């Protein structure tokens, strides 16, 4: 078997204090000075270790407390309380919730996947990706010795066009020459950030991370800078302006090039192929209700990668916006129905916030997924969007030191990779390529409600 893919991680502390869910309020007034103070009895030694948390640059009391409430319940004069932190509640928005942001921070900091005791405490389901569950198998064999064992789960995917079937002449010679193809070991590509402070250092950081985990980062034509030349193997260049004005020597060396959808898309593709026949060309298409027809049309015209983009909340551009997973499902099934699905690579992005979204979007039909905002969150972004309005970033992301930022993004992607393995392992699927479109191995809220809860009300 090929060499096993692995991302090495090491903890990378935050530069700024993280925003914590709750804090400790301990009154001094009225203290009885008990010889055996509850603060001394803290199991986690929170009060003994109290000080300026060097990691967070804040009072360590709040960050170390694990909410066991023993001091709250045992202080004779009830001087210790806990309270929710209003700043935490205000993080992000309805989609990029405080829980998502703080879990992304945790992964970027530690490189570990979020693990906890006791049962799941969240809502029954929700909108978007939360309206689906992935399957598990009681007796299918995932791997002989666990998901991280020798006989491992492959997350590699191929980007490019494929033949529906190989053709041979009467002598047995192959008549269908192979299309150029790019392999990535993990089905994640870094996308253009919807908003960010000045991107000079950020782009370097993203490309370093893309190189580290051996994938690609999409860089726009306007962001191109000769200093990025050393990352050519990991750049997916997005040609937004006039392609003919771009340095042909660079175009010749790129492996992935993206162009916007439009009337001249076939023409530009042909022109690019003329310069660099080995490059795989992707078309970036806004996700909308016509996506399925456009996908079929472009596939039939011989394109290689279709990259569908939803907005940052995962919504398409329809009048009553449909969520990305549902629209991609539609596109995938339309291509399947017409017999073209295996010829094209589908990329999808917009609103991918957690590792499970990655797995779910692939199950709904994407070959690989593009990720944007979580990369910024790994760099300590609070999703306040002040940068979009020109207000300075509270955590100064523009000044990130690229090696440090790289390590945080690497940690986050390592966490996502390991979680993808968990999901695939539970399903008994050992190939990310086979996860694509496996909707029979997922369960959808609407289907289950229709099947299970609606019949409850057929009263006689």
């Amino acid at each position, binding site marked *: 078997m090929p060499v096993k893919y692995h991302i090495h991680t090491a903890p990378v502390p935050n530069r700024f204090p993280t925003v914590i869910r709750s804090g400790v309020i301990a009154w001094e007034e009225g203290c009885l000075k008990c010889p055996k103070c509850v603060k001394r009895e803290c199991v986690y030694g929170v009060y003994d270790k109290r000080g300026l948390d060097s990691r967070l640059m804040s009072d360590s009391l709040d960050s170390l407390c694990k*909410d066991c409430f023993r001091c709250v*319940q045992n202080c004779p004069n009830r001087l210790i309380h806990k*309270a929710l932190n209003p700043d935490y509640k205000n993080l992000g928005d309805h989609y990029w919730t405080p829980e998502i942001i703080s879990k992304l921070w945790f992964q970027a900091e530690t490189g570990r996947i*979020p*693990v906890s*005791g006791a049962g*799941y405490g969240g809502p*029954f389901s929700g909108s978007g990706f939360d309206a689906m569950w992935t399957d598990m198998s009681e007796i299918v064999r995932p791997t002989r010795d666990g998901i991280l064992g020798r006989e491992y789960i492959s997350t590699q995917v191929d980007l490019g066009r494929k033949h529906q079937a190989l053709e041979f002449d009467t002598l047995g010679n192959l008549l269908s020459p192979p299309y150029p193809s790019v392999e990535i070991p993990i089905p994640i590509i870094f996308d253009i950030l919807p908003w960010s402070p000045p991107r000079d250092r950020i782009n370097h950081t993203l490309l370093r991370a893309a190189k580290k985990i051996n994938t690609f980062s999409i860089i726009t034509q306007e962001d191109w800078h000769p200093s990025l030349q050393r990352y050519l193997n990991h750049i997916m260049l997005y040609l937004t302006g006039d392609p003919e004005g771009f340095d042909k020597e660079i175009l010749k060396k790129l492996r992935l090039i993206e162009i916007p959808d439009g009337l001249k898309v076939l023409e530009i593709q042909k022109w690019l192929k003329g310069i660099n026949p080995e490059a795989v060309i992707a078309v970036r298409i806004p996700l909308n209700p016509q996506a399925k027809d456009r996908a079929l049309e472009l596939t039939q015209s011989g394109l290689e990668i279709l990259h569908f983009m939803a907005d940052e909340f995962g919504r398409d551009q329809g009048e009553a916006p449909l969520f990305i997973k549902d629209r991609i499902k539609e596109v995938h099934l339309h291509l399947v129905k017409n017999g073209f699905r295996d010829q094209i690579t589908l990329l999808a992005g917009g609103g991918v916030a957690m590792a*499970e979204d990655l797995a779910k979007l692939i199950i709904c039909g994407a070959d690989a997924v593009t990720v944007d905002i979580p990369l910024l969150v790994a760099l300590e972004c609070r999703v306040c969007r002040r940068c979009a309005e020109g207000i300075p970033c509270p955590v100064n992301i523009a000044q990130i030191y690229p090696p440090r930022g790289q390590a945080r993004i690497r940690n986050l992607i390592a966490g996502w990779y390991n979680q993808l393995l968990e999901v695939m392992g539970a399903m008994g699927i050992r190939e990310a390529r086979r996860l694509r479109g496996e909707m029979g191995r997922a369960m959808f809220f609407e289907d289950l409600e229709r*099947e299970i809860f609606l019949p409850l009300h057929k009263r006689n």
Partner: protein
Amino acid sequence: MLRYILRQCSVLQCSPLSSGLARLVSGLFTVPSQLMAFYEGIMFDVSQFIPPEVKPAPTRFRHGLSKFRIVIGKNCDNCGLCLNLCPFGVYQPGAKRPKAGKDFLCLGPACQKNEFYCIARCPKDAITMNPNPSFEVLGDRRWTADLLASTWYMAETGEIPYQGLNYKTGDSGGGFDKLRLVFPPNKALDCPDEDICLSLDLNRTGDERPSISLPIPFYLGGMSFGSVSINAILSRVRAAAAWGTFCCTGEGGYPDDLKPYDDHIITQVATGLFGVREETIQRVRIVEFKYAQGAKPGLGGHLLGDKVTTEVARMREAVVGSSLFSPFPFHSVYSVEDHKKHIDWIKATNPRALVSVKVSTPNDVDMVAVGSYFAGAHILQLDGSYGGTGAAPDIAKKNIAMPLEYAVPKVHKFLKEEGIRDNLTLIASGGIRTGYDVAKIIALGANGVCLGTADMVALECLRCHNCESGRGCARGIATTDPELTQLITQDWGTQRIINVYAAWMKQLRFILKRLGITHIRDLVGRWDCLAHLDYIKAEEIEGELE
């Protein structure tokens, strides 16, 4: 007969001595297994079961956690009026002024309408009441602070809460929390509580094995030694014995301390086979074959190295301090035929045991159920994804496998269509928080339920989700740390769990009476007793929704 009497003694007093005697006596009169099965079947008459006594078991901590916080200000002249007014015992006398030491018993603002409302009656206007900020930090969408506090109250008193806490539903926005029981008009029964039977038969296959009946519709699920403390385990086991039901060992071996309760133990055979020996299988009346756990379906178990103490390591035949993995899946089971082979193996090892199969809730859970039945299982346990765990990836808990509220009706319907519904005992677990959840899941199609988290909450777990960190649970439940283990005494723990279930039994009898049902088995699969608020409006239904 002697054995029966002695077992009853052991049930009622939880005394290791009398139960030990029972085994000695039964050892003296060796009975052929078939005959014994026959006796076991007729001996345990649930109608004669005497429920354990409820006794007060107050919080181990100085103060209970209350929804409202009462403060008596400096202008109090210690007249003592509030002490006399409050019928709930919120106040205790103090040297300078009374103390509101039990404000978790307070009704809160709802008390305003009462004549004894202390805030209005205080001659010095010295009493203030505010929401307790700490209370807001507690709980989550499934186990809200209200549910936690009401469970603590039930564990302390054995009574249904009166304080206006929501003890019926959580805030998860779907499933249990959107389902309501429909109480039809003019059907309510007017009979004593004792006339409502809550018993559960575990063997419906009609084979020659014992028919075990429980006086209550549930047993307690597996928590291994290692993941929780020995005192927590023994509290659960003793409470199970007192209620005439069972408690599962989980996958971690069979501590010697449990031997006196052999007749109330389910031993677990899981993928790691930790602590599984011929002798442990032969010792019990039910053996549980665990395929998957709802909290981490398809992922196997993982005991972190910190918790593998000398004692844990000895029992699991492992190395101290090194993490233990229980792999997934059973590496010898890849088909129903393999599955049958394993069940046959257990049945041959212990000719009197019933076999339970615990599975998670995948898409094809209905097929799994049928497969298990034909492989020879007596009990099928569906473990939903809200179930407890010492440590599991959050991604698994949230996303993998379907919620229990879908799986149970799906399996119930399929088994009915296959004509085998009456031959299999269907147990639901993973996320049953209240007596109302019990009634709802039975109405959806389960025969009974299996519980775990509710016991933990009875022992004052507050779901901080840090079972796995450091020395383990700071509240002395999920830990093997010798000092933290001492935070719980067995007597206290046993009583707390007994009390919670005493309150649940009251809830269940109350529910059944209002439904006009005298035996809980008649509630199984009664979808007409349920309404889902997303699909039907209260005014469209005749009857009360609760």
